[in-house]
């Protein structure tokens, strides 16, 4: 019983990481229809920000808390810059954004290699995140790692912040307006180019926050972005493009599925099985779990 609960919790914490990574993508890919392959490198930027801050601030706890807003700003600024230099020229060619931003991601990876060196680096977790919480006592105790709980809380907070921003603020209304009907938004007096850049700033900033969270899970390296970005894209595709609800549900479902499969098979077989399950799922719902109903033929 505790094995099942333990695996489920591991799955939930994988899901929380996935969710944090995919959240920014749900803005830039889901809402803006831009496939940003450099998103993984923005996550890396957030992780290295944490690393640098820890070098300059002595307390690991303080540096982690400082890293959250700073990483948001660093990654967000990178995103806004990318949007301004390249992506705004490519809104009509979404597939090309994928390849162009791949070029950007190559360059950012090399930049990280030149600045921080090719080997992975490690950050220290603050003391208040190193322990475990024992939930079920007895002979066979069930323990949750504090750092995993912190990531879960961070993911929930980020989802809440993003959905409240999209729902309640005027910026959120403008973003949704531009997504739903760009031309109508433009003639209503919304500066779509400014909204695009702001949305990109927010989405990329969330990648930075995800990067901070990832420092608690594993080492930081120049290629860390490439390895996780595919999973995040799959979450968005299965969840339904631009659907926050879908992203949240699918992130946790995929996390738990992967964790359970890894327990019963191996990591590599689990990856393949999850992919097969996704293709099968898309047979049932080709546009993802949640879709905007439109009159379009596709």
């Amino acid at each position, binding site marked *: 019983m505790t094995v099942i609960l333990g695996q489920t919790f591991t799955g939930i914490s994988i899901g929380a990481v996935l969710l944090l990574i995919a959240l920014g993508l749900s803005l830039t890919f889901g809402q803006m229809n831009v496939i940003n392959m450099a998103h993984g490198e923005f996550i890396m930027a957030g992780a290295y920000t944490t690393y640098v801050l820890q070098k300059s601030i002595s307390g690991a706890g303080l540096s982690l808390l400082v890293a959250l807003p700073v990483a948001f700003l660093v990654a967000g600024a990178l995103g806004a810059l990318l949007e301004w230099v390249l992506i705004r020229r490519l809104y009509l060619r979404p*597939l090309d954004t994928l*390849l162009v931003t*791949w070029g950007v991601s190559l*360059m950012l990876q090399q930049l990280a290699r030149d600045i921080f060196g090719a080997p992975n680096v490690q950050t220290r977790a603050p003391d208040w995140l190193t322990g475990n919480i024992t939930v079920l006592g007895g002979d066979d105790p069930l323990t949750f790692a504090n750092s995993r709980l912190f990531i879960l809380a961070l993911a929930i907070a980020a989802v809440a912040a993003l959905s409240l921003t999209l729902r309640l603020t005027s910026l959120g209304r403008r973003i949704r307006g531009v997504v739903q009907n760009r031309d109508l938004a433009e003639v209503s007096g919304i500066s779509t180019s400014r909204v695009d850049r702001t949305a990109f700033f927010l989405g990329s900033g969330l990648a930075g926050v995800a990067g901070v969270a990832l420092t608690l899970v594993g080492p930081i390296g120049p290629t860390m972005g490439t390895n996780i970005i595919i999973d995040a*894209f799959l979450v968005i595709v299965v969840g339904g493009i631009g659907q926050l609800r879908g992203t949240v549900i699918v992130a946790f479902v995929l996390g738990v599925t992967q964790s359970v499969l890894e327990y019963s098979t191996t990591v*590599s077989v689990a990856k*393949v099985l999850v992919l097969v399950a996704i293709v099968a799922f*898309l047979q049932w719902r080709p546009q993802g779990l949640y879709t905007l109903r439109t009159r379009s033929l596709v």
Partner: protein
Amino acid sequence: MTLFKGAPGAKGLSASTGRPARAWAGFGAAAVALFALAPLALSDFRLGLLAKYLCTAMVAVGICLAWGRGGLLTLGQGVFFGLGGYAMAMHLKIADAGPGNLPDFMQLYGTATELPWWWRPFGNPLFALAATVLLPMAVAAVLGSFVFRRRVKGAYFAILSQALAAAFAIWLVGQQATTGGTNGLTDIQGFFGYDLDDPVNQRMVYFVIAAVLLLLIALVRQLIHSRYGELLVAVRDSEERVRFLGYDPANVKLVAYVVAAGTAGLAGALFVPAVGIISPAMIGIVPSIEFVIGAAIGGRASLAGAVLGAIGVAWAKTALSEEFPAGWTYFQGLLFIVALAFLPGGLVSLAGIVRRRRAAPALPLGGAA
């Protein structure tokens, strides 16, 4: 070369498809360059490298069809390249080991006492040769029919194909005992009875590769200029209209995807004797995208552009990464950004743009090719 005689000439389909006479000349020039000039001018080492680049060009031929003509951005060509490569390498490993013996790496890990059941059929040369092409095509057919029938397309398709490449590479790494894991299948010595260490045989491998590349170009060119080729471009540009005309776009796309998988499989199979190794590092996400890069930079919609782009980028990678290991990555990234963001038709479109600029300076650039 008589293949071209029956081909209907391109009637203004796009700037990249020249008239048959011009294509004839280009084809002849390529044949002369590959079979006469290159073997005379290049050392054995350089010729071996060229053989490797030509394999990349074969993948680009398929990418030109699927992506350039059909708009299917497939970021998973590494999977098909790998299937072809592993099918060939498995046969060559078995042949190297001799009857009854295990391939060296299996003895090394000591986990397998006899050949795994799924290795056994590859001991048969005919089966292995057929599998290098048919296995990738079958995988593409299954995946493609699932994906295209449910109208999964555009970014969804690109991401799925990319995830496939990632999953395949991870799976290969995980099966250490039967696939060689991260190392892959290395140290391949013989090629159907010929010793690959012998420079003469290496040259023969080069000639085989060059001949297969030319054959693939001729076949795919024929396909592009057929009725099917026109349909494929129509599906790319307006899928719904093609559907209303009574065709099933899913089938049209499926053919392009399967043919592209076949060329990639063949490329992988010939890559193995040329280089002597196949490993997960050659088929994961990064190499899969690199296959696309060459075609994109040269010109995705034009066979000549895609092939020359693939060879050029592969050559530049060797030449520049020898000199500046770090600088090459910046250059590669920059090349990719500039080519795609500012020159979507690739380098081959430059000539057309210059010509049009001269004729009418105010004419805007054409959209995505």
